[in-house]
């Protein structure tokens, strides 16, 4: 049964799902908004008692976790965070699976009705690193054909209700740096997921050809259905950020939103090299992702370690410890801005120097 939309998000399949998701969103608000400041204070006190440094980019995180986990509040917070995350996915996915054929058919119908806008090779091989069940989503991004639907509902909870109008993605797209010469014919949303930033990029750059690239076909198929439903003309393509299947100098603008903290450290340089290759001289690259190279208080380090170990963010600690601006400069990109955003994420902007 179609239940209409809440903003840009289709209403959950049933009122029961909608109520459960609302409950988990409230529980997440409570866990983050009310519990975490106390968890952070308790962690910092435990660190001080154990003689551990209060701040650090990495530091002796194992010792910090051991000290903090002895505090009942910290352990309870972790349990609530993990249970809330797991049960959010389970609830909505179970309902979708009861009518899986209909949801699959909607994806196929969108492909048939709008040919030439979603490109993938059935022989494409998904690398193992992309098979992680990031944020505990069952099947991850690539192992569940309904992952796009599940992701869209689940991230409404994850983003604490800031996802039904693409609110966070609008902030991200507003941060995208444009070339100084103003010429934007082609833009790339690298690791576009379900294409929320992709469609907003097209709305910001209506004359540009906008492409969303991602490794996960289930997310792309949902993104394609969503974009065509919104009447926004963008392209989607399955591919790898470390092997971008476009010619040198093809794009004027590239955006990578929360890509780097979800790939292994060994790919940071290959991805940046590929972006530098496909950007034309004077083109820009904007990265919105986890903060890196910073000094974090003990509570924040505890949360990041929790995410890495218990919320399936295995690659995040390496990105947090990395020096992204230095990596960009190593590949010939000129960093023009590094700074925080209204959320916990950071924004890094750079450009490929114009040809002299």
């Amino acid at each position, binding site marked *: 049964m179609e239940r209409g939309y809440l903003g840009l998000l289709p209403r959950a399949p049933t*009122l*029961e799902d909608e*109520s*459960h998701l*609302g*409950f*988990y969103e*409230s*529980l997440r608000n409570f866990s983050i908004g009310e519990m975490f400041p106390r968890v952070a204070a308790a962690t910092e006190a435990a660190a001080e008692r154990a003689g551990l440094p209060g701040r650090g980019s990495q530091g002796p995180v194992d010792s910090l976790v051991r000290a903090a*986990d002895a505090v*009942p509040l910290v*352990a*309870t917070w*972790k*349990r*609530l965070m*993990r*249970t*809330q995350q*797991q*049960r959010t*996915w*389970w*609830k909505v*996915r*179970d309902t979708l699976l009861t009518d899986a054929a209909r949801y699959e058919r909607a994806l196929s119908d969108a492909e048939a009705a709008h040919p030439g806008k979603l490109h993938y090779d059935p022989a494409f091989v998904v690398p193992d690193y992309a098979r992680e069940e990031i944020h505990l989503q*069952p099947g991850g991004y690539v192992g569940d054909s309904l992952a796009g639907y599940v992701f869209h509902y689940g991230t409404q909870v994850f983003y604490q209700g800031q996802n039904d109008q693409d609110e966070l993605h609008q902030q991200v797209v507003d941060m995208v740096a444009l070339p100084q010469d103003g010429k934007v014919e082609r833009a790339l949303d690298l690791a576009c997921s379900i294409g929320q930033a992709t469609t907003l990029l097209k709305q910001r750059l209506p004359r540009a050809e906008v492409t969303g690239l991602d490794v996960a076909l289930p997310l792309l198929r949902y993104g394609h259905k969503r974009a065509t439903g919104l009447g926004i003309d963008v392209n989607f393509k399955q591919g790898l950020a470390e092997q971008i299947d476009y010619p040198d100098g093809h794009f004027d603008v590239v955006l990578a939103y929360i890509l780097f903290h979800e790939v292994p450290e060994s790919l940071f340089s290959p991805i940046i090299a590929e972006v530098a290759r496909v950007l034309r001289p004077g083109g820009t690259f904007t990265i919105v992702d986890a903060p890196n190279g910073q000094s974090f208080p003990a509570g924040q380090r505890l949360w990041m370690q929790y995410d890495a170990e*218990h919320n399936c963010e295995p690659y995040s600690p390496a990105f947090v410890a990395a020096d992204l601006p230095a990596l960009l400069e190593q590949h010939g990109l000129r960093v023009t801005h590094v700074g925080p955003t209204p959320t916990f994420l950071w924004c890094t902007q750079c450009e490929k120097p114009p040809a002299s």
Partner: protein
Amino acid sequence: MTTTPLEPAFLPHPTMDRMLDALVAISAELSAERERRQVLEQVLAAHGALKPNEIEQYRPNADELAQRKRERDAYVRRIFGSLGQP
């Protein structure tokens, strides 16, 4: 139903983690039921179809009772499933 082993245990005993997980689950169920009942009562009242005490006095038939039992069994599995894990 989608479940995974309730690991890791964050609290001093794994049963405490499971109890907290069960508390979250039952709270979600209760919250959803409250919302549904509110919607239902508002719809019925709007149509003039719900009178005071009518719900309390309602008598279900055998099929309805059997359906309630099936739904209750599934409900218990959802809430207490993690406690039943090895």
